[in-house]
């Protein structure tokens, strides 16, 4: 086995397109531009431009998937999987990690400045969909001169993007690795998103989204994140991590102050999220998720009719936000179309977060799957 190493210093890059009058048409029909997409690349594009892999992130993360930003202590969010000798081996593959339209992490989103007014878009930003994210990423791929990709990979919201890439661009995508994801957002997922949105909207500081340069709706956004965090963990992982441990006290306080470690943890998670994420962006991205239904209300198998990619579908036993049965439905629909699909249900107690935590299993599955895809496609 090759030595696993970390990438060194990496930088986020930016690509701007859809300058008026050549705006991009969004799924809603609205014409919108200019659009900037933040992205990072790792490894080298080979001479045939045939070794590219697209990586997509989840709702609250960004294009910085691996390596270190100058001066940063922590690496990118999937550093365990991306780097020399790792599953997404940068000695072999050219990894493109793309941010999404609507994000507050360098791409054009509700917190970006509208060049026409010189002020942030806020709620004048158009509603976006996962389809719009993918369409914007296709512009990025064209810009990079990549005509085919070996694989599109993502977990959670990133998985939705990966699936849509295979459906919308069947000739481009050789394989899909869909992790802890599904083909349509379910009522439960929409419900959790809506509670998060209501937490933001009912914060008096939200001001119908017009809070830039004023007090931000920190309480609402923190609360949305706390709810989100509960859905990312599992009953077992929370109990193992916190149990009934008290916060630096011998006994409960018999008042409404915080008693338990888990309360403290959620508060910390909520507060730190506020420092790095925009409330309006949370509203827009969670709505984009809600709109996602690959079958568009019809039969799922039909949605995959034109797909020609090979698939690796990974689910986690304790993930109750994107339960394994939803991955199995996906696999069944893929098989109905005679699509080459492998499915693995990884035993894990980490809930939805498992896709960021279960590094060893994922590395094994992804590296071997990609080796096969590379062998079949890299001549």
């Amino acid at each position, binding site marked *: 086995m090759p030595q696993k190493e970390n990438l060194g210093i990496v930088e986020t890059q930016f690509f701007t397109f859809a300058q008026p009058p050549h705006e991009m048409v969004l799924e809603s029909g609205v014409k919108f531009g200019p659009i900037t997409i933040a992205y990072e690349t790792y490894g080298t594009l080979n001479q045939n431009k045939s070794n590219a892999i697209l990586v997509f992130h989840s709702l609250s993360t960004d294009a910085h998937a691996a390596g270190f930003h100058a001066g940063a202590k922590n690496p990118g969010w999937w550093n365990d999987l991306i780097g020399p000798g790792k599953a997404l081996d940068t000695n072999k593959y050219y990894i493109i990690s793309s941010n999404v339209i609507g994000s507050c992490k360098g791409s054009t989103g509700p917190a970006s400045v509208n060049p026409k007014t010189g002020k942030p878009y806020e709620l004048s930003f158009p509603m976006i969909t996962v389809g719009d994210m993918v369409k914007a990423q296709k512009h990025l791929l064209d810009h990079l001169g990549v005509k085919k990709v070996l694989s599109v990979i993502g977990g959670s919201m990133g998985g939705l993007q990966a699936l849509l890439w295979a459906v919308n661009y069947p000739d481009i995508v050789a394989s899909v690795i869909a992790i802890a994801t599904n083909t349509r957002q379910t009522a439960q997922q929409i419900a959790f998103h809506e509670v998060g949105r209501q937490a933001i909207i009912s914060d008096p500081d939200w001001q119908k989204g017009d809070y830039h340069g004023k007090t931000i709706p920190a309480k609402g956004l923190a609360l949305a994140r706390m709810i989100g965090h509960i859905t990312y963990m599992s009953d077992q992982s929370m109990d193992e991590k916190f149990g009934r441990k008290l916060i630096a006290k011998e006994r409960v306080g018999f008042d409404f102050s915080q008693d338990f470690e888990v309360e403290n943890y959620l508060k910390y998670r909520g507060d730190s999220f506020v420092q790095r994420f925009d409330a309006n962006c949370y509203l827009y991205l969670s709505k984009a998720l809600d709109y996602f239904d690959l079958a568009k209300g019809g039969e799922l198998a039909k949605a995959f009719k034109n797909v020609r990619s*090979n698939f*690796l579908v990974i689910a986690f036993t304790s993930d109750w936000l994107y339960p394994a049965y939803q991955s*199995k439905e996906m*696999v*069944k629909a893929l*098989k*109905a179309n*005679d699509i*080459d*699909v*492998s*499915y*693995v*249900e*990884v*035993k894990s107690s980490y809930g939805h977060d498992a896709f960021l935590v279960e590094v060893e*299993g994922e590395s*094994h*599955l992804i590296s*071997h*799957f990609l*080796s*096969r895809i590379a*062998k079949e496609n890299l001549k």
Partner: protein
Amino acid sequence: MTNPSPEIFRLDHKNIFDWIESNSRVLDLGCGDGELLSHLIEHKAVKGTGVEIDEAAIYKCIARGLTVSHGNIDTGLDDYSTKRFDYVILNESLQQMLHPQRVILEALRVGKKVIVGIPNFCHWRARVQIFFRGKVPVTKELPFEWYDTPNLRFLSLKDFRRFCRVNDITILGQKNIALNQRILLKPNVFARIGLFLLQKSSS
């Protein structure tokens, strides 16, 4: 292009391998670590896929570059359309199923031919243990005690032939194995494993 015949150590695998025609489509239900499928893909250029319940075995299959689904065979066939495969293999898995009849009939729906491999519960050693020692048999092919066996079904080769007759299944071939050799005489007594090549009678 098929490669020259491989070295296959397991006689059951060797016999199944010999039954399967080159370039066919194969589904291995309970494919284990994917050894047989790998042989078939490499040497007979089959288009093969497997279903396996054990996570560690699935990891080995993926490492071999196989296309496999992690799951229960009792329900694993629902995903496939009719006559999707030339062969469906059920080797050493039938005896562990909750609904063997349904699974075999389903296998005959999705596959043109079905290969079944079963341990013979009425092998003479098993008979001796029951008859003289008065205990439930523990043999090489059935190495478990009654309290820890994964096997839910106990049948003989004769039982299986009867099952086929009753269910309108044609037995196109039968091979009987004991301790890595073929058994030609009185298989229901001397064979430890029976392999059957099946087809739905009406088709």
